[in-house]
């Protein structure tokens, strides 16, 4: 008698047992589905931000970021003499193109007593702009801007309209004059925050809004390598050892060190807790079930069922409960993840394109592996009871009861 034929009969027996005891089966399956959904979400959360951020960084088309220091873009001091620096970097063989970007906080006057806060991105260089034009056209000359949909919704402006913008460029620039800018298009900015108002323009226009004259300054230079971002970083560091340069993966590493570790720790703790609940739930259900059926199991052993066979029955029952609950947990987990993602994305400072829960095949594989391990571990104790069951003593006890 092969192990396969034993398992096949055990699966058939466990299926019938569960189908004909619907209350117990439903309790087990729903419990595993709930716990499995949470487990799936925790696994998606543990890597979700990193995967989403990696995707976001890759989507912009730039694979190296150059800053004045080793700080993340927007967090450190500005790069000075941008035109010279940009020319030096763009001339490197390892670099295909480069674009300097300056971020400026500003206000747009919609009416005499109505303003909105905006984030201004001024760019210069030969690389494509870090936005995608949705309507109208892209900027060509100084004084032209593209705005995001959030501004369109707030102000009703359309391509061809004019905006009055007042920049806030740091200490000592509080009384800057207003700049008159012409809207030429509506664009999507990949790193814009939820409900953030964003304007894209030339670096010269942004600098002029800050009232500055002389060499241009920038927050970051976005570089597209010739194919090998590590080689591009090495070349930039050699050419300009005073600057910080990092590939997307290195930027991700810094982000992980600073903020994202928090979510991974939370997900690890919650994963452990949810798995413990699943383990306890199934172990209790199976142990109670086995203890209620000791007489039947002893009778089956007396009728010639092998020890391996009655143990396989318990294991298959556990596998069926966890398997059915696990299947149900996938759509449940997906719906729950979408709901939680919407809530978490309302946190301040989170780009609207960034997601906390991102599906990855590896998370699904780990989910399946953890549930399979839970099914086996939860069945260990009831399997031990069945394997060690003294047939004659159990039959005697059952009659005595």
């Amino acid at each position, binding site marked *: *008698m092969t192990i396969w*034929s034993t398992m096949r*009969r055990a699966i058939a027996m466990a299926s*019938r*047992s569960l189908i*004909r*005891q619907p209350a117990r089966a439903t309790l087990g399956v729903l419990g595993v589905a709930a716990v499995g959904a949470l487990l799936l979400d925790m696994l998606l959360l543990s890597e979700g931000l990193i995967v989403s951020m990696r995707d976001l960084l890759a989507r912009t088309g730039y694979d190296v970021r150059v800053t004045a220091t080793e700080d993340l873009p927007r967090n450190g001091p500005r790069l000075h003499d941008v035109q010279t620096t940009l020319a030096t970097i763009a001339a490197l063989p390892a670099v295909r193109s480069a674009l300097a970007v300056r971020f400026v906080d500003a206000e747009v006057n919609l009416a005499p007593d109505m303003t909105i806060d905006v984030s201004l991105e001024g760019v210069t260089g030969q690389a494509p702009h870090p936005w995608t034009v949705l309507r109208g056209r892209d900027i060509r000359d100084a004084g032209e801007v593209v705005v995001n949909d959030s501004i369109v919704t707030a102000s009703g402006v359309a391509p061809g309209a004019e905006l009055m913008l007042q920049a806030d460029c740091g200490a000592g620039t509080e009384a800057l004059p207003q700049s008159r800018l012409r809207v030429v298009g509506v664009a999507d900015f990949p790193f814009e925050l939820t409900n953030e108002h964003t304007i894209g323009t030339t670096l010269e226009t942004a600098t002029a809004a800050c009232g500055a004259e002389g060499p241009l300054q920038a927050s970051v230079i976005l570089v597209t390598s010739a194919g090998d971002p590590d080689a591009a970083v090495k070349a930039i560091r050699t050419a300009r050892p005073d600057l910080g340069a990092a590939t997307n993966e290195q930027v991700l590493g810094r982000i992980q060190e600073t903020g994202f570790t928090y979510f991974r720790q939370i997900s690890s703790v919650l994963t452990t807790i949810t798995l413990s609940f699943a383990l306890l739930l199934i172990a209790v259900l199976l142990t109670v079930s086995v203890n209620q059926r000791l*007489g*039947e199991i*002893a*009778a*089956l*052993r*007396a*009728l*010639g*069922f*092998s*020890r*391996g*066979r009655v143990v396989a029955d318990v294991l298959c029952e556990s596998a069926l409960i966890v398997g059915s609950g696990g299947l149900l947990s996938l759509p449940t987990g997906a719906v729950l993840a979408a709901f939680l993602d919407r809530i978490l994305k309302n946190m301040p400072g989170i780009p609207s394109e960034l997601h906390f829960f991102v599906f990855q095949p590896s998370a699904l594989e780990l989910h399946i592996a953890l549930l399979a391990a839970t099914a086996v571990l939860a069945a260990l104790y009831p399997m031990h009871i069945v394997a060690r069951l003294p*047939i*004659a003593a159990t*039959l*005697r006890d*059952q*009659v005595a009861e």
Partner: protein
Amino acid sequence: MTDTIIEAQSISRVFQMPAGPVTAVRDVSLYVRSGDYIGLRGPSGCGKSTLLHILGCVDTPTSGTLLFDGRDVAVLPDAARSLLRLRQIGFIFQRFFLLPMLTAWENVELPQSEAGIGKAERDRRTRELLDYVGLGARADHRPAQLSGGEMQRVAIARALANRPRLLLADEPTGELDEATGEQIAMLLDRVNADGTALVVATHDATLAGRARRELTMRDGHVERETSR
């Protein structure tokens, strides 16, 4: 294969209890041949069930030898003993021990499936057995939908599923009223008449009296053997 199916040679069974050792079976020698009908009779606690369990290879004697077809059962590994029970020995219990989630049909089919018998042969044998015990019309009923007598009939059909040479019954009428018990006793008579060796442990003198050999037990040993 000898005519003697099973032979117990001076077997004893001692249980280690907190209050001290208790001898349930004391120096019993017994053989069961093909076609035998043996009644083990005695009051509760005299060792009938323990002797039956030893004969059924679900318990091991503390001393003495148990031979099945001339082979010492004590040296057989657990898996081999399970196979021996599956193919050669049938059990009937006082409390039936049918699987409640299975129908009468499925309960009878189960040991055949475990023995690796093909579907067509299982279907034929299951139908034949349920008709044999008079429950052909109740095949799709689950134990909870059957009376005590019907459950015991299903249990008898289940015990006969793999055509055992030896059928062991432990108080088979213990949970039944007198009339139903009589029907079960008649069914057991028929099973024996059709060629299956039968050992029935009972405290019921009437049931034990139907056997051709009646062994009266007291305090773990066979006090008297009567042949008819």
